[in-house]
């Protein structure tokens, strides 16, 4: 079925605007390519690339290890309170990496929680964690839940009779996992690793608080020196390029539905563990939960209580709270308005054009925020100075990176709208508009709302773009947390962080689990 012209034109226009940051950045890059050799001769480039890739590989590997191990233990073994353990190990997902980094950096600071605790045992000298190790630990702790969510849901859908088949052919348990379980999880493993990978290379908050020199941190440092300098363009382009490659590969491993199962669906028989192994497993879970959940929350509470006893009040952080909520509300409303025609376009009119739209929106999702922010800065300075450093620019910039979440939410529910429903409605004499109102919209609005809610939460927590593009005097909780933490004003930072988590934790948990397991 052909999409109506107005729909195509509107959507094309929207997407062209949205792709502008990439195009503009590439154009800037093309214009200075004569200076390229200077760059490639400096060691700086290779150090930054190496640092970024090293972190990428390290975090992906450890996240994969933790996420897979937890998934297998929970889905295939008899352990106490599996649901509770699942929830507790997924929960770190709601902690933005910069808050995670804040807790670990501040805990080791001279008046921090760890120093406080250890000094009671007579240990006064403890070395903090920062740099590569710090970034590695923190990013692992807050990204492994993505692997866990995706892989455990894939593992649950895996037909366990295949595992029975392997065993009846004489294969021991451990070999069974390597020969028939992990190979069948190849796609979800690749998919979730690259999701984590994109998160790592785009992360700005954690690495900058940990003082580890990656591409994102370099872009920001060069930006503070000279906003229009070549290094900013060069590194931003490089970052966009790497992100595009990763999301391209990731799309190739997009999850397909599991094969149909005949007969009575059988509940998986979970394997029993010996008492000793059960104990070891519980210790493992306790450690994961301790580092990814208990320590961050305790450290924040510690600073919070300290700050309140010193007379800190909510007034200091109120502008940031209001700023975050305002930005998030405006962005999510626009996201819903813009996403609806795109969703209809992609799902209801299955054309080549629709596929292209889908690919473009997915590409936007993987873009590193800092690079988009830089590009938007350039565009507003050079082309439309009227909106330079305005709220409008900030919102557009948010929309560019978060629109895919709104589209994705709508699309998931749009899959229920089969083409035959639409045709049935036409056959019963309803017009296109009537069909949209009576059939399509009622089926997709819940998904769209969920997608919009996710946009709201993401906007509220967004850091690098906000840092680059916010109008003077405008602040958000994320910016407050980061700038206070950078200056070691931990009680202030913890206050904002606590409020941010209090507002966002529960809805983020609900929406992310729903989204990633769908």
């Amino acid at each position, binding site marked *: 079925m052909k999409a109506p012209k107005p729909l195509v034109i509107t959507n094309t226009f929207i997407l062209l605007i949205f792709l502008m940051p990439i195009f503009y950045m590439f154009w800037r890059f093309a214009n200075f390519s004569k200076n390229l050799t200077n760059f490639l001769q400096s060691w700086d480039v290779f150090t930054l690339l190496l640092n970024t890739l090293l972190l990428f590989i390290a975090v992906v590997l450890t996240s994969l290890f933790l996420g897979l191990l937890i998934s297998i233990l929970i889905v295939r073994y008899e352990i106490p309170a599996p649901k509770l353990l699942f929830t507790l190990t997924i929960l770190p997902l709601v902690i933005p990496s910069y808050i995670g980094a804040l807790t670990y950096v501040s805990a080791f600071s001279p008046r921090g929680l760890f120093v406080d605790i250890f000094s009671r045992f007579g240990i006064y000298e403890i070395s903090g964690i920062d740099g590569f190790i710090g970034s590695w630990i923190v990013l692992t702790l807050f990204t492994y839940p993505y692997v866990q969510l995706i892989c455990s849901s894939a593992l649950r859908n895996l*037909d366990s*009779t*295949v595992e*029975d*088949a*392997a*065993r*009846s*052919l*004489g*294969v*021991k348990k451990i070999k069974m996992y390597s*020969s*028939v379980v992990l*190979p*069948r999880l*190849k796609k979800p493993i690749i998919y979730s690793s690259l999701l984590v990978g994109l998160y790592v290379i785009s992360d700005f908050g954690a690495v900058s608080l940990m003082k580890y020199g990656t591409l994102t941190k370099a872009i920001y440092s060069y930006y503070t020196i000279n906003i229009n300098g070549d290094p900013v363009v060069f590194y931003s382009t490089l970052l966009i390029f790497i992100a595009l490659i990763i999301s391209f590969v990731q799309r190739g491993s997009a999850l397909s539905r599991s*094969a149909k*199962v*005949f*007969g*009575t669906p*059988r*509940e998986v*028989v979970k394997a029993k563990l010996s008492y000793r192994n059960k104990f070891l497993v519980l210790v493992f879970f306790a450690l994961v939960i301790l580092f990814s959940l208990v320590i961050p929350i305790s450290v924040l509470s510690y600073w919070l209580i300290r700050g309140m006893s010193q007379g800190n009040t909510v007034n200091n952080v109120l502008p940031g709270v209001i700023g975050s909520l305002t930005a998030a509300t405006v962005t999510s409303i626009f996201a819903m308005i813009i996403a609806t025609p795109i969703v209809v376009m992609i799902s209801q009119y299955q054309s080549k054009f629709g596929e292209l739209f889908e690919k473009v929106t997915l590409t936007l999702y993987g873009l590193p925020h800092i690079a988009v922010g830089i590009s938007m800065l350039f565009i507003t300075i050079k082309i439309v100075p009227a909106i330079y450093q305005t709220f409008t620019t900030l919102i557009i910039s948010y929309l560019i990176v978060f629109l895919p979440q709104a589209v994705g939410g709508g699309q998931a529910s749009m899959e229920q709208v089969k083409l035959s429903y639409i045709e049935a409605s036409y056959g019963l004499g309803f017009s296109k508009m009537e069909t949209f109102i009576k059939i399509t919209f009622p089926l997709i609005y819940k998904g769209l709302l969920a997608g919009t809610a996710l946009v709201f939460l993401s906007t509220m927590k967004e850091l690098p773009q906000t840092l680059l593009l916010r109008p003077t005097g405008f602040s958000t909780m994320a910016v407050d947390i980061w700038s206070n933490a950078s200056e070691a004003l931990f009680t202030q930072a913890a206050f904002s962080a606590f409020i941010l988590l209090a507002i966002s934790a529960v809805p983020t948990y609900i929406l992310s689990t729903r989204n990633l397991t769908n």
Partner: protein
Amino acid sequence: MAFENLIIRARSVTKSYNGETVLSDFNLDVWNGSIVGVLGMSGSGKTTALRLIAGFEKPDSGLIEMRNEIISSDEVFVPPEDRNVGMVFQDYALFPHLDVEKNISFGLSKNEINEGRLEEVLAMCNLENYKNKFPQELSGGQQQRVALARAIAPNPEVILLDEPFTSLDAHMARELRDEVVYLLRKTETTAIIVTHDQEEALSVCDVVSVLENGKVIQSATPQEIYLNPVSQTVAHSVGDPNILKGYSVNGRVETSLGTFVSAYDGALDVSIRPECIELTLDSDGSYLVKECTFYGHDQVISFQNSKGEVFRARSLPNTIFESGDKVNINISEVTTFPSKA
């Protein structure tokens, strides 16, 4: 038959899930080289029985022996990988990431492969042309063959087949069934086939065990089961009989279709299989044809008596019956059971 030829012996096996009893008293004897059918409705526990024999699950109580050695009891539990049992799953459970060749050789040792066992099995199951295909590229029937080949390759003591032909269309199912039985007979492989399809059980198996509510209620040759079912349930599961209520006095029971001899006195059910009722067209006949369903090899005629009760007869397709025809009946054989109520 000598006792040492008993391959599988299950005694008083019970299993329940979350308090719901699936098998309450499961007994089974499987002799070397025989094909045993476990016939039951869906939910009767037949797949569970297979899974317990294969060792995928542990019985709550009871004993399972293989060649006179205990493989499952309160004290002993041999894991599936050490049982040497081949399983053909209902959904085939082929390894989707391995091609046909790798699927079949999965359970083979290096030695066995070097000795040419893989090629042997491929040839036996007519799969030489598909050895480099992946399961997703095969039709249902071909997948079924690969599943069988994979199970048979390591020369298991017994092959368990779980509803092996249910997911295929009728024609393909019959063809493959003949092929599988031929293969099992030729290789003298012992097999247990779980099925809900009476025709399958009766035509393929040496012994049929009828399972109801987690209990084997009759275990006998197909002929015995069909001709002398021990209960109405068994009669129903291997045929589609007319059941008439009656009360027997002095060995005679009167029913709507006539008076019959009975071994018991008292309330009883008389079972008459449709093919045991012969219909003859007769304009003065006391029964009225209601409907005739034509199947090609035979036809099923439903007819009613003066009281409006409806019965079914099966006959060869050489007489044409039409709705409204008057007929007379002649009953050749009946079976009686004590009434359930």
